[in-house]
Each structure stands twice: as C-alpha cells, then as structure tokens.
C-alpha cells in the first residue's frame, strides 16, 4: 500500500519526534509513505486570517502535487488536514484562480482516520508485541481534525473514536471523557499566553479527573500546548503522546527512551513504572 504524505511544517520542527514515529510505525505496518514532492506550507491560521485567496492557493499547490501522484493524501497534522479540505471545497466552488492544475478530487485523510480503518486496526493488532494494557489514557482530538463537521466529515465530532480505536488496538486502557474536542488554545499563546494556559490546564485537570495517566493526541499544536504548559508544574507530569509514539511503543520498536526526550512532560518515569520501557 502506498500513500502520499503531507507532513506539514511542524513535523520538520517542533514535532520532529512525531514525524519520526510516523515513519517508523508505517514501516512496521508495511505501508509506504511517499512525501509529496517539494511540499509547501498550508498557510495555517495566518493565511486563513489574512487572505482568503492565499488560504485556498497555498494548500492547492500541495493538492496539485498530490494529484500527479494519484495517491490518497495522508495528513498527520490536524490543521494541515483542515486547511487542505477547506481548500478542496473552495477549489470546487471555482471562486479563485488557482495557478496550478488541480482537481480537488484527491482524497485527503487525516492520519487517525486512516489508521482506524478496520483493516488497519487488524494490521496494528498483529504488530502489537507489547500491549500497553497498564497504561490509562484519554484521547484528545482538538478542534481542527473534527470541526466543522461539514468540512472534516466527523459526524461524531463531540465523541470521535479514531484515536480511541487505535489506542485500544495498541492495548492501552482508553478512558472515555467529555473533553475530546475542546480547544487547547491553538496558536494564541504567541500573544496571549494566559489564554492557552487556562485552556490547556483545564484539559489537564479534566484528564486527571477522568483518571487517565496520559493523553494521546495527533495534532502537533495540541501536543506542544498541552506539553509545554506543564513546564513549571510541580505535580507529576501527564505525558502527551502522539498516537504513533504509542503505537511504536506497543510494536516494541527496538529503541530507547531518547525518543521521548523532546517531551517537556517527561513520559519516561511513567513508562518505566508501567514496565513499558
């Protein structure tokens, strides 16, 4: 199986660990990820905020490139995913001139939805060597992957299931909670740190209330908000795992704790206590 892969800027930077874990997991699953050649930034919130044209054109360039590859696009970053779908919708409306030849037909999948397909879940289960059954987690989806449902296609936007299914396939004890898709504060921390802190800390508090030890995410921005907000926290950390990090762990990937050193909320003590490292 082959997919075209749109990593997005974060995966080259702050979420480099995410990127590595994705490649590792897909390799184990035997699925080829072909990075979209010479991909460029989706425009993120900035283009969306400042220029409607750019918010359509920027993702369209990548869609055009993917068109040529003839493969479904897989998108690990929620915001990229949302922007690509938004752009597709606008391309179909033919409001703006797009400088590249683009159909808008190529299927864009968020990575979790791909991994949660029954066939892939089956595959994941086959690859699990070390079930994470002692690890109590909640899954956190954030905003951009699920909302607005008219764009993302998540009819269960309040109680999405993809991360839950994948984590469960890795053997983790997944706890249902109400705050799967409440906002973490996104990029507002740049100017108004206190808003991110209040939103992200609340999510951490609700995580503890739910009785979970860690949070599973798929969005690089959510990860960094929830992770960084723990920087000066005195309580024991609540590790924020990318879903692929969790999978990699359950696949008993021959590796070592150094992968986790990029986390601010250090997961190593927890994983060691659980006998998972």
């Amino acid at each position, binding site marked *: 199986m082959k997919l075209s892969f749109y990593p997005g800027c974060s995966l080259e930077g702050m979420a480099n660990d995410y990127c590595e874990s994705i490649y590792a997991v897909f390799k184990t699953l035997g699925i080829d990820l072909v990075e979209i050649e010479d991909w460029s930034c989706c425009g993120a919130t900035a283009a969306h905020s400042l220029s409607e044209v750019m918010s359509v054109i920027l993702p369209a360039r990548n869609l055009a490139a993917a068109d040529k590859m003839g493969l479904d696009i897989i998108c690990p970053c929620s915001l990229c995913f949302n922007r690509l779908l938004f752009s597709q919708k606008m391309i179909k409306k033919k409001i703006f001139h797009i400088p590249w030849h683009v159909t808008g037909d190529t299927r864009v999948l968020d990575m979790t939805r791909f991994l949660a397909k029954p066939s892939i879940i089956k595959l994941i289960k086959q690859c699990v060597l070390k079930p994470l059954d002692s690890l109590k987690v909640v899954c956190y989806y954030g905003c951009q992957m699920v909302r607005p449902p008219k764009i993302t296609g998540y*009819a*269960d936007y*309040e*109680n999405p299931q993809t991360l839950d299914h994948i984590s469960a396939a890795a053997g983790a004890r997944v*706890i*249902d*909670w*109400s*705050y799967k898709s409440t906002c973490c504060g996104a990029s507002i921390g740049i100017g108004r740190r206190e808003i991110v802190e209040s939103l992200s800390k609340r999510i951490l508090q609700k995580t503890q*209330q*739910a*009785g979970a030890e860690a949070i599973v995410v798929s969005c690089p921005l959510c990860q960094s908000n929830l992770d960084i907000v723990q920087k000066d926290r005195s309580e024991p950390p609540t590790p924020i795992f990318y879903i692929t990090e969790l999978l990699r762990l359950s696949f008993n990937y021959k590796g070592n704790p150094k992968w986790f050193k990029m986390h601010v909320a250090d997961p190593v003590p927890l994983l060691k206590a659980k006998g998972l490292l």
Partner: protein
Amino acid sequence: MESYLKDPVGKVIVIGGGIGGIQCALDLADTGFYVYLVEKSHTLGGTMARLDKTFPTNDCSTCMFSPKMVHVASHANIEILCLSRLLELNGAPGRFTARIEKQPRYINEEKCIACGECAEKCPIKVPDPFNGELGTRKAAFLTFPQAVPLKYAIDAKNCLYFTKGKCGICKKICPAEAVEYDQKPEILQIEAGAVILSTGFEPALTEMEGEYGYGRYKNVVTSLQYERMLSVTGPYGGHIRRPSDGKIPRKVAWIQCVMSRDLARNRPFCSSVCCMYAAKQAVLTRSHEPDTQTTIYYMDIRAHGKGFDQYIDRARKRHGVRTKRSMISVVYLNPENDNLIIETFDHRLNRKKEEAYDLVVLSTGFKPSDDFIDLAKQLGLVTNPYGFLSTEFDEPVSTSKPGVFVCGGIESPKDIPETVIQAGAAAAEASILINVARNSEIVCEKVPDEAPMDITPRVGVLICHCGTNIAGVVNIQNVLDYVKNLPQVTFATDFLFTCSTETQQTIIQLIKEHRLNRIVVAACSPKTHEPLFQDTLRKAGLNPYLFDMASIRDQCAWVHGNDPEKATKKSKALIRASVARAVQLEPLYDSSYRTDNHGLVIGGGVAGMTAALTVADQGFHVHLVEKTDRLGGFARNLKFTLEGNSPPKLIRYLIERITHHPNITVYLRSRLISHNGHVGAFYGTVQNENGPVPIRYGAVIVATGGRPYEPTEYLYGKNKRVLTQVEFSKRLVEDSSWASRLNRIVMIQCVGSRGPDFPFCSRVCCAAAVKNSIQLKEINPGAKIIILYRDVRTFGFKELYYLKARQKGVLFFRYIPEEKPKVYDDNGNLTVDFTDRSLNRNFRVEPDLVVLSSGIRPNEGVKQIARLLKLSMVNEGFFLEAHVKLRPVEFTTSGVFLAGLAHSPRFIEESVTMAKSAGQQAMKILCKKEMTISAAKAEVDPEKCSACLLCVRVCPYGAPFLNEDGVSQIPPSSCAGCGICVSECPSKAITLKHCTDDQILAKIDALLEPTDSSFLFPI
C-alpha cells in the same frame, strides 16, 4: 368513485391507538359507524399513556385516560386490532379494502386472564421500551398495568423458547392455557368507507445523534424517559432517581429545543409542546422533591395555549423553577460523580460558568415513526419535508388522498387537547363522507336484564391502590382489614387499578359469586369514574344506582399526602360512610324522551359556519344565529395568512355553501334571547328585527368569536402612524405603493396580552408580525423591520416562517416586561426607545410606522350567552370548557359545545378544526332518536306540597311549575338534580332521588361514628 359514495360502507378504519385514534373511534362509533381501531403495538395508549401528569392542571394522565380506554375497549362498535399494521389500501372513498397484518401475541387474547404468572416466572429480563429502556421487563410482559386489551404478550425477539428453543415455562405454568407459541401472523381483509390516520409521533432524538451526550452519559435522559421516571408505573415507581446510581437528583436541568428549531439538523420547526411539558416536569419535580433545584434552559417560552402563561408564572414564582434564557451547546460529564456539567456564559461575571447537575433532561422534539414513513409511501400520501402529514388551512384534516383523513401528532406536533379537537374533526369528515351508511353496520349492545336480588343489603367494597397514588399514602391492607369487619359488608377486596378493563370483568364475577347488591368503590373520585363502575354494575345485572364511591385518592391520599396515618383513618371513615349510604340505596330507573334533531349554532363566523355545515352535511337541520348583518366574523379582518392562504376566499366559500344549504336557516341581526329545555330537547327564542322566532333544537354550538383588542397604549389612536397588525396588513394588500415607500418600521408584540390586566397570550400575534413583515419585505426588500418581542411563539411549522423572516433580514429584539419599549412623538418624529439585553444596549429608532401586535379579546355580549345557557367562563372572558385536556369542545352543561375564538385565541385553521369537532360532538346527540335521562332527579310529594312556590323561585334551571292540581311538579328532563329545591322546601315535600335525606343522614351519622368497628348502623 362516485358510485361508492352513493352506497358506502358504514365502517371506518382508524390507524393509531393513542388519544387521537381513541377519540376519533369514539366520535365515530357514537354517531352510528363501526370502527376498526388499528394499533401497531401491544396496547392502546400511544404517547399519552406514557405521560405522568399533564399541564396545565397537573391531572394524572392515567386517571384521565384510563376511563377513555376502558370505554373504547367495551364499546360494542369499536373493534381493536393490536399488533396490526396497514399493508395496502385499495378501492376508493366510500369503499376501501384494507389489507392488515396482525402480528402474533403468542398469548391467546380470549384465554388470557392477565394473572401475570407468565411474567412472574419468565427468566428473561430485557430493557423495557415503554419505560424508555430505563427499567426492565420480562420477555412475557404486559406493557403497563392499564393496558388495553389487558392481555399479556410474549416478545419473541428475546424469549428463550423462540431464540434458543428452550424454556417454555410460561406455557407450562399458564393456568388459562393461553400461551400459544405456534401463532402465526394473520392477514385480514377489511372493508371501510373511510380511513383516518392518527399514528402520532415519537421522540426525534436517538442515540445516533450524539447530542448532549444522550446515549453516552447515563444521567442524560429524554423528556419522555423523564415522564416515565415521574410515573408511578414507571421504572422507579414514581420516585425520581437518577439512572446511574439510583440517588435522588438534587439539581435537574432541562435543555429546550433539542431536535427542534434546528435548521442545522434539518429540523427547523418547533415541536410546540416542549416548553409546557418541561415546566410541568419541573413543577412535578419540585413537588416530589422540594429540595431539588430545577433549571430550564430555553430561548423562547412558548406558552401559547389557554392559561399556559399563568402556569409558567406559577412554576417560576410559586414552585421556584429557575428559567434561564440561554441555549446549551454541550453537556460534559464529571466522571467522579456522574454529574453533568453545563457551561454557560455569565454576562454579569463576564466569564464562562460551569454548573453541575445530577440529571439533565433533554426536551426533545418529535418526528413521525419510521413505520409511518413507509405507510405514507405505500398510500401515496404527500408529506411535508419533515415527514408530517401537514394539511391545508381550509381542510385541516384532509390528506392528499380522498377518503383518508388525519389527526393528531402526525399532522404536526401538538398537545392533547389539540389532538382531541382534530380527532373530532377527522371523525366529522369521515362521517360526512359516508353519512348515508350511518347505522348500517353498528351492533346494538345488549345489557343483561337486572337479576333478582336479595332483600337484605349485601355490600361489596372494592378498594383501589391507584398504582401508588393511593397505596403510596394510605395503608390499604389496614383499611381492607377494617372494612371486612364492618357488619354490613359482605365482601371486600383490593385492586391495583380498579378501573382497568380486566378488573371490570372481575367485579362482574364477584357480584355474581357473592350475590352482592350494593357496591362501594373506594378510589379516585366519582367525578371521573362513577359512570364507568355504574356501567359495570349494569353488565352484572345490578341496578346502577346501587353504587357509592368513597374518594380516598382525592380526599385522602392527595390532600393528606404528608400524613399517611390520618389519610388511612379518613379513608376508613369515608368508606364507612359510603357503606352506610349504600345500605340505604334503592334501585332507580332512567327514563327517556324523543330528541329534537335540529342543531343551533350561535355565531356566524368561520367557526360557526363550519360547525353548521358539519351538522347540516350529515343531514340534520341547523339554525345559525348571527348578531351582525353579515356572516364572516373576525376572519373578515384578515387578508392573508402566514402560509399564504386567503381567509376572504374561505369566507366567500362558506357563505356560498351556507346560503344555499337546504338544511341551514340563517338568522342575521339576531340574538338568542331565551333558552330552555334540556339536552336533546331544547327550545328557545331568536329575536330579530321582525320579532321573536321560537325554535327547537337538540344541541347548541357556541361560536361567539372574538374581537381585536383596541390598544390604548403606544400612542395608538393619537398618532396616525401607529397601526395595529390588522390595519397594517389591510393596507399592505390594498396599497403596495405605500408599502414600497416605507423605510423603517417597528412592530411591538404582546400589546394588550400577557399583561397584568389580560394575562393570556393571544397565540396568533407572533405569526401575524412574521407574516406582515415577510409580506412587506417581499414588496419592499429594503425596508428595515424591527420586531420587539418578549418570546417569539411561532409554534409548529410556523417556525419556518420566523426563520424566513429572519433570513430576509427582519430584526428581532427581545424586550423584558419591566422595560417595555417607549413610543413618543419627538416634534413630529415618531420615536421608539427600547433596550436589548442580549447586547445590553439602549436603542432609538425613528420609524415611519409603529405596528402594534394587539391581541384577541372575547366578543362582547358573551356574558349574556353564558347566563342564558348557564356556561362557565374564565377571568379573561373566554368560555371554560368541560375539561382542558379531554373535553376541549364541550361544556359541563350537556348538549352545549364550544368552537373558535370563544374558547381562546386561535388561528383560522384551528377554528375550522374545532368547529368540525364541535359539530361532531353535537352529532352524537342529534343522531340519536331518543335521550336517556338519569333517575337521580327531584320529585315532589303532592301530599306534602303547600304550593309556596319557593322551589319555582330558587331553581336555577327553571324546572318546577305549578301543575293542574295546584301543586309543584318537576319534570325530570328539566331537572339538573342539583338539590337546591330540596333543601329550600319548607314542607320537606321534595326528595332528590339517589340523594335522599335518609341516605345523606346515614352517611353523616356513619362519618361521626367512633372509629372502632363496634358501632351500629342507623338502619
């Protein structure tokens, strides 16, 4: 097609056994037609059977409904087909052939004695759908204790015998050998002249929707589930418990408009009843659990019915129900205690506020059932985009298929009285269609002759638990033991529900077995249930007057609910008194007289004309009396409706039909000035310019209409740029060039309504404002229209027009009654000041026009009619119906019916429906050859009468007169049995039969006896 209508079948198929179907069946069966009542589930009852109590009276739904169901079940001309559905309908109006599939019950209905052994022993427990799956029932089950027919059934989906071929216990233990595993579905072919659909609605919220965590969080329930939680027959025996842990919830929230008024979910209409039932549920919660806090989150309180606003007001002020105008988006769960978190934005604190609730009730809207969607397809019926069989305003019960009529919740979401009204109208339409076949298919009920009875009184006492209504307070066993020891009591026993159909059979058996000749029922109230039990006596061959009832529910369990000991003691005393009276009772015999088959309709508006036609089209003559010089009434003021229909056209059509109808005599510029006689045989005088005209009639329909309120506020009458909606609408139609020059207009709602002087909501004004603003926007899209409202009450599908008005840019601002808008003339500039609390800002507008949504008031002169016909009225001057839920078009005075604005403000289509319904109720009298009158009337002993004429003077019904022998005589047909003359007569010459002095004194003496059982009865 034509030929069928000349020779139609005198039978009607009614599909749906809820309140709509039941009312429809009764309205047809009582007017000479045979009815098949087809119900898809195991029992009649529909949604109403699942309700605990009903607004605005907080009456117990079961107590109201059970007698009706029993009546249907025992009606000789109604055949109930449960577990049945219509597969196919062929033929044409007048003669349809229906194919009906009847699913097996697996328990023989004839044999089942409803002993409950099968359910008791059945090993399989499954979630109970009747209780919203909150409780469990067995695979062998009875849907609810008052089910009709009261027959158990086996649920093959879960039964071990059907799923695994094992078990078979029920068959082994059934004492009646009624279990039949080999029953197969049956196909029935039925002929009928007309078909009526009353398939009702079901909650639109499913777990699939994922809204507010329904299906995900245990303590989030739908309103119908909550209704079951409140009910004594519900999963928690009438105690409010939350599903997760069985604890009493201390904070309960209601979220309104779930699956309603929601364009995003393709449900942009309002479900009409949720505001009221939420208020009711909150009030009941507060009375069940005074320490529980209740909060309703709403956006507009839609209390558009008679007395509803006062109910909401009481809920808030007297019962302390909190209402918060804020719509909720998400419900979160606190996993530590299963509480639910509701987040709202607190304007005062300028931050989000989390509030935790123990239980959240979702006031969910309604949808047609999936089966109905198939049926509609099968019958080729046109539904609206949301699956309802909505109708046209001049034919409010007709579907797109001739001969097929509709009523109730499947037409549009509606409450019980509106359903009952519509059911009557649907019955009327069917009745008119197959009128010539009246009485051709009916079965005459055989009442057994009265059996000879022992001379000595043998009293039987039946004590009712009324679920837990009585038994929850009164110690039944203690009362029973006491009653058994009373010397005059031959036999005594108790029942869970003494009024159920099954119990009636048992009572007949007991009467025969113990040779009982006096029966005392200790139960709810004789007001509702006496006729039912008297009928049972009749069937047992016992004279129905040998009956007395002790009201141990209303007068003991309810009024002394917090003192079980006293309630028990009082129950004993009341039963003792009833027994004492019973011993004194004697058999009496009703008499009968010929019916005058003419109808009288008072009021020539749309309601009056429609009522007249409903009767006249069924072959009976009608006197139509109108006080003005032309027909048309209030509707003459209206030029077009919200839905784009034309009232003038309807009026023209009705007048055309009325004036040419051979069965209708119209009296214009006339008034009814005298009214005498009694139900079925009234006589009166119509006064017109040519003098008095004596008329005779069997029934009266009061359709005296209403009038527009003429405002005194907001510069009306002082500034010519201040108009009413009616005036504005007229001008819009007449002068569109004027309309296209309007730049800015302000409409003010609730003018003369919902205030201290006149607390009623006028129901139609919101729609009128919406209608006129859409009309103006269509003529003049640039006009700025500002509507200042308190609650927008565009209920039902009218909500679509509210949406349309907004989409067209009409601005709606809410004002609160403490901050009414101010209208003033600022040096020639008409100015409106108002405050919007959503923005927290004051506004000023200088409009070209201020349009006042002035409400509807009852017509002048109705007091005279009320006095003449002895009718009750509510404070606002509208007439008071016999029962707000189940008898909305009747008066307590028999033979007099009510339609249109005289009842309360309503839309034209609602008036038309009501008039048809009232017409059909009148038909129940008119189509009878003779009327039976009760024997419980006053009688003068000529030997004792001193002809003092006191009785003649005091009788409010004018019954007594001095006969040829010079003594007072009271014709039974005129006597209402009130007893005033009896107590006034100085010679003690008058006796009220069935209420003799001896009987009453016996009762009083027994009441005053000491409570031990050794006392003697004054025989």
